[in-house]
């Protein structure tokens, strides 16, 4: 190992008075335990509510953070809802779509004027459409994960980011999002990038006044698909 590593580790061990066999073993055990038996911390009561209420909280918190949310009845309505968004904001009928089969197989041919390309984002793209892993009710935050079907550039380069989120993907707390990722990727494993996104890009660096669209998207639009039973949210 490198000299730098030895120097730093030596300093840390001296500072922590390592070298006593029993105490060292206990410290190692505490660390192993914490990393293998992962415990949640304190979860705010706000996040611990029934599924239906989580969807409503997600929407109101996201809107508070300057995102826009439109509810649609099924995934098949996504192309039309996207076209409405473009028209409503005077945007050209062009879309960069995440290369995910679920999104690619939607009825795009119902929007003949819309030019749809898939792949990672290019600088000239004005609008992207992606899926999400989860919506976190606590703060109206979207959880997105990178992968071959979800290039990260789609979340940041275009000025308009449209996200398809199913009501069944809405969870209460960030920790519920981690659990979903552990289920899909295995313990201790994460996709290369996990993005928590709460509203569109902003800055307050000039006299503390908030301006949207600093470097990332100016608009964040959520198409919330009501795929759950409206009675109990399952």
């Amino acid at each position, binding site marked *: 190992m490198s000299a730098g590593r030895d120097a730093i580790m030596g300093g840390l061990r*001296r*500072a922590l008075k390592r070298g006593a066999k029993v105490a060292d073993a206990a410290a190692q055990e505490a660390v192993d335990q914490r990393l293998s038996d992962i415990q949640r911390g304190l979860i705010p009561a706000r996040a611990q509510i029934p599924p239906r209420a989580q969807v409503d909280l997600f929407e109101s918190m996201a809107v508070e953070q300057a995102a826009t949310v439109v509810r649609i009845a099924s995934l098949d309505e996504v192309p039309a809802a996207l076209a409405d968004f473009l028209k409503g904001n005077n945007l050209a009928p062009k879309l960069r779509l995440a290369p995910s089969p679920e999104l690619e197989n939607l009825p795009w041919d119902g929007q003949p004027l819309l030019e749809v390309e898939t792949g990672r984002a290019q600088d000239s793209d004005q609008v992207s459409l992606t899926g999400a892993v989860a919506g976190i009710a606590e703060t109206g935050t979207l959880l997105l994960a990178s992968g071959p079907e979800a290039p990260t550039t789609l979340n*940041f380069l275009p000025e308009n980011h449209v996200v398809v989120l199913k009501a069944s993907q809405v969870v209460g707390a960030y920790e519920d999002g981690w659990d979903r990722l552990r289920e899909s990727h295995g313990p201790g494993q994460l996709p290369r990038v996990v*993005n928590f996104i709460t509203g569109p890009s902003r800055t307050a660096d000039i006299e503390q006044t908030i301006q949207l*669209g600093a470097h*990332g998207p100016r608009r964040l639009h959520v198409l919330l698909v009501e795929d759950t039973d409206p009675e109990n949210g399952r």
Partner: protein
Amino acid sequence: MEPSPRAFKANAREAVQDPQLKRALAHVKVGFIGKRAKAVARLPEFDALRDAARDIKVHTLDHLDLYLERYEERVIAQGGQVHWCPSADDARAAVLDICRRVGAKTVTKGKSMISEEIDLNQHLEANGITPVETDLGEYIIQLRHERPSHIIAPAVHLTKDLIEADFRAHHSHLPPERSLEEPRELVEEARGILRERFLAADVGITGANFLVAETGSSIIVTNEGNGDLTQTLPKVHIVIASLEKVVPTLEDATTILRVLARSATGQEFSTYTTVSTGPKRPEDLDGPEEYHVILLDNGRSEMLAGPFREALHCIRCGACMNHCPVYHAIGGHAYGWVYPGPIGAVLTPALVGVEEAGDLPNASTFCGRCEAVCPVRIPLPKMMRHWREREFERHLTPRAVRAGLRLWAFLASRPALYHWLTGWAARLLALLAGRKGRLRSLPLAGGWTRVRDLPAPQGRTFHALWAERQRRAGK
């Protein structure tokens, strides 16, 4: 940055007389404090979360060597590299090595206080590599060849008019008649210019708010999205972080995240919280091909052993400076190094030496607001007091102050004499002040009366009043 905390007194004197700075700092007092208070009021669990956040830091620091080992293992398993750097020199050299190996010409940068601590931009420039700051506030101060005056709002000392003038001077290829009246127009212009830089950069450098031992991930928190473009577009991503940034698990990072944005900007959550783990995977369509972590010590392992360990809890939210009456009056530059405000007054002596930075822990009224708002409950006033004691022990305190303290100690350990003397002093001062009750000048108190009147004591001393109260209660 060449530390100049020795100049603190002169800097502070200049700062309080700067009307432009005063206007700019008014935004700190109003904006940050009110927004934080609102966010805290909305979350009943906030104080319990502060305890939980502190407990995570205590546990992690107690096992820092072991968590760093695990963290490194995980980074390597994901295809990344960790560069262990005991000093600022080592860190600068490690970054430059990577940049040279990949033939980098320009480097985009997300906001990083460690970069300021190790003077990275100067080092890159001196070696023919152009660093481009992409956080709007950092970009503005880079144009001005200045340093951040606040750890999360680097350009908070500037007013809009000054920024407009800088943009007109530096963006000379744009039409001079364009309007830059509105903050929105300034943001648009910076966005356009920096977008080109993002696309052209060879290496992207970001800081880290957390390193996660469980997964080998680094986490950044931003509002602009500049950090994400910085680390996604170039072929190499370098993370620079100090070693106390490590936390055990994603859950631990999450708990601290719940207090971070609320304490910093008063947001419920920052716009972008980004967790990065290793380089681009074979099947990915974008992302960097290399992922490096520069792990900096620079004096921190020594802090771990002594009375300043708790300063390593700091999550760099800026709440202590946002609530500090001294910071409100003088801003961040007067502190003379990277970290201003109460946390700077504790960290700077530890990292650059108390001989250099002895004035900083003395620039406090001990009003306690910093400790009251700290999301990880760092006892900042206690630590500043520790530094003052150390200065006294090491004879760094000026002779006149030492003599004064000795005289006071002599009196304070002789209560009868003390009461008699202070009683007379109070009466004498009241007499001198006359009907106005204020003194325009007083021998030995020139530091106070040069800029304001000294209110004279009124009535009897506290001890006298207390004694009377006790007598009455005894009846």
